[in-house]
């Protein structure tokens, strides 16, 4: 109300509310509590060791992919090729290992290199050829699919049992794979919070023009994000190989591309980039895993699961959006139309019609 507020703006910051990430974790708690009650009504315990393990192990694979996906989405890009990268990586891992424990390191290096190279392609197509990331990564995905379908007629390769431990063994109630995933997540969080490239990802996603004018080499940042995203998917492929004991092309049919995007958005990262983080994503992944476990315990019909998951994702994002509107910063005038069309279409600015007046 006072004009001091208008000029300094500090008043607004003072009544800053819960950050997006905290909200997502709260949502996770909410989902867990509701799930636990429903499970308890069925005379079971969601927090039993077995069920906890189940939640955690269900979260690891999606976790890897979603961590990577977070980075590209933060940069206002997206990656629809992750499913194919996972499939290819699992095959490379399994065929390189070929049952020989000594070849495990070689296989890991090979996977990281190949998946990184795919990320490089994705990134270069988006930045240099200026192809919309949706189409670019869909196209690269199709190219990988073509290779996989031609080259592999089914599972191939053999993962030595030592490496299978990555998929099956546990430390206490925590599966090793989940632990590794969490370590990667922490590394990712530090990367975003502590490195320049991490900072620049927020900038590139917030506004590529602003970033460029601030001296950031936006192309490089975006390419880095794509490379890291593909590498994360490659790690997912390694986990698949460990869990399957072999590599499998058909993983690409399991919908990890869209599911990882859903998890990221569920985790409070803006689909149009510039805001969010891996912390929220992990909560998003855990929400999906808890739902999965609860549905399984309650023996929910698999098709009803899809219905519920669809509805829950939309409802959650609607709730985040609600807060966005409340925080309406009415007339901020950012950036000109620098000609570089934003890769992601979803506009943010609130519609000046209807409900906005009441939202203040």
């Amino acid at each position, binding site marked *: 109300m006072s004009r001091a507020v208008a*000029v300094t703006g500090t008043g607004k910051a003072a009544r800053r509310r819960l950050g997006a990430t905290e909200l997502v974790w709260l949502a996770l708690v909410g989902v867990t509590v509701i799930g636990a009650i429903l499970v308890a009504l069925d005379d079971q315990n969601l927090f039993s060791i077995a069920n906890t393990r189940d939640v955690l192990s269900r979260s690891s694979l999606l976790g890897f992919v979603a961590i990577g996906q977070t980075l590209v989405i933060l940069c206002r890009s997206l990656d629809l090729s992750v499913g194919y990268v996972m499939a290819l990586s699992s095959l490379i891992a399994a065929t390189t290992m070929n049952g020989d424990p000594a070849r495990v390191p070689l296989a890991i290096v090979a996977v990281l290199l190949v998946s990184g190279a795919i990320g490089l392609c994705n990134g270069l197509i988006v930045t240099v050829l200026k192809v919309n990331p949706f189409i670019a990564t869909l196209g690269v995905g199709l190219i990988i699919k073509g290779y996989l379908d031609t080259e592999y007629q089914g599972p191939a390769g053999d993962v030595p049992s030592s490496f299978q431990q990555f998929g099956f063994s546990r430390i206490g109630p925590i599966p090793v794979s989940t632990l590794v995933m969490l370590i990667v997540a922490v590394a990712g969080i530090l990367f975003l919070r502590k490195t320049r490239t991490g900072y620049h990802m927020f900038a590139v996603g917030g506004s590529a023009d602003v*970033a460029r*004018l*601030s001296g950031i*080499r936006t192309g490089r940042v975006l390419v880095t994000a794509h490379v890291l995203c593909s590498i994360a998917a490659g790690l997912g492929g390694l986990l698949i190989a460990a869990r399957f004991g072999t590599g499998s092309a058909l993983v690409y049919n399991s919908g990890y591309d869209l599911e990882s995007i859903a998890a990221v958005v569920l985790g409070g990262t803006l689909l149009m980039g*510039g805001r969010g983080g891996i912390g929220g994503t992990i909560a998003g992944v855990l929400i999906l895993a808890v739902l999965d476990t609860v549905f399984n315990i309650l023996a929910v019909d698999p098709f009803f699961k899809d219905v519920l998951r669809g509805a829950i994702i939309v409802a959650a994002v609607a709730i985040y959006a609600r807060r966005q509107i409340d925080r309406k910063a009415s*007339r901020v005038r950012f950036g000109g139309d620098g000609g570089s069309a934003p890769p992601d279409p979803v506009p943010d600015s609130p519609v000046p019609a209807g409900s906005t007046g009441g939202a203040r």
Partner: protein
Amino acid sequence: MTEVASPATTLLRMSGIEKSFLGVRVLHGVDLDLRAGEVHALIGENGAGKSTLMKILAGVYQADGGTVQLDGVDVRFEHPLLAQQAGVSTVFQEFNLLPERTVAENVFLGREPRRNRLVDAGRMNAETATLLADLGLTWLTPETRVRSLSVAGQQIVEIVKALSYDARIISMDEPTAALADEEVELLYRLIVRLKERGVAILYVSHRLKEIFDLSDRVTILKDGALVDTAATAEITSDELVRKMVGRPISSFFPDKLPGTEAGDVRLEIQGGGNEQLDGIDLRVRGGEIVALAGLQGSGRTEIAHALFGVDRFTRGTVRLDGRPLTARTPRQAVRAGLALVTEDRKGEGLVLNQSIAANARLVLDAVLPRRASQSTRRIPGILSSLELVSQGSGQEVRFLSGGNQQKVVLAKWLATEPKVIVLDEPTRGIDVGAKERVYTLMRELSAQGVAILMISSELPEVLGMADRIVVLRDGRVAGELPGGPGGADEESVMALATGHDVEEEQR
């Protein structure tokens, strides 16, 4: 850090700069030199090429011809980063901040301080705080999210960011376009300090007052060519305008057209209020121009938005031609005969990727589709009466200069034949020629009996155009002053706007 150079040292010399966009030459061999410790103004009409020249200096565009010399050495900035590293920093015409990031993160964007290869957020915040304290901006905290700042606050962050580079050359492209006089004062003080440090400042503005207040030398561009560079002290404002426009402008604010007279009250707000506003009483007659003056954030735009259904009055009544008006959406406002030329041309006024024609008929298409086909026939006439300069009505609006874009916005609203038109900062960022065209248009509309409510941060404009001036302070009407010749002066408006005695405040 910067060695204090003697005023005569030429830091930068741009000579014969050429630039074409897609075959259209926009700079024809422009020369410009900057000396340490000087403020060098760059003026010219909209589209004269000021921003382009500045962007070449900043490494955003590459010149097609000509040379840039820094300290006598040829340089070529292929990327903004290289310009920054060479000590050239820029406040661009468009906002260049990340709304979701903090002040400190924005200021240090692209060169975050590191320790052991990791970003040192503590040091970043501390350095930002020092920088802010140095400039006397203690009310800004480094951790504030830019989104929560007002437009002026954001502009200040931009400037702080440019300063933080330890630059020897700072170019500012219309830094005051979004600022009210009070904040302009703040900027003046910043610039004086920079001069003292020996920084060269390239300063673009359409406000002649600022040119004379601040600059040591002035370079005038016209149609991409250099007209003259002169010492500011040796040039009069008439001369300046003539060189810029190519003709003398006799009277800047046109007189009322004969036959213009205040008619019945067309727009009336009684006791209007909402979260930002309280007790707004306002009356605008047909044929009358009423100005809303006030400081940044005093609630002027808010009144326009509440009237127009973007926001709402939760209290009070609004009448249009005597009939109650409760617009809940812009659509209802338009139907009732209201038009709003918004202060943010690109963000709220235009669909930039569409043609001039599509923009001009947008309101008709959206609100009055049945009338659209016949009303659109008037549009070519309106556009040509506004003297729009374009390459045809099929041209995309984003390729027009600011002034011409504003004309398209005006045409869009004139096509609806409004009864009441609200103009929010109608001349923001447009050149004198275009300004004059807008003023003439306002006079013409008045003569036709349209009621005009004008919001402006430029006091001369307020004083020169308005019949009455309503001054706002903190979302309330602070008082009303008569306009026109013999009416209020700048001091009395400022006194009402700030609630202080201006003289006292300034000295």
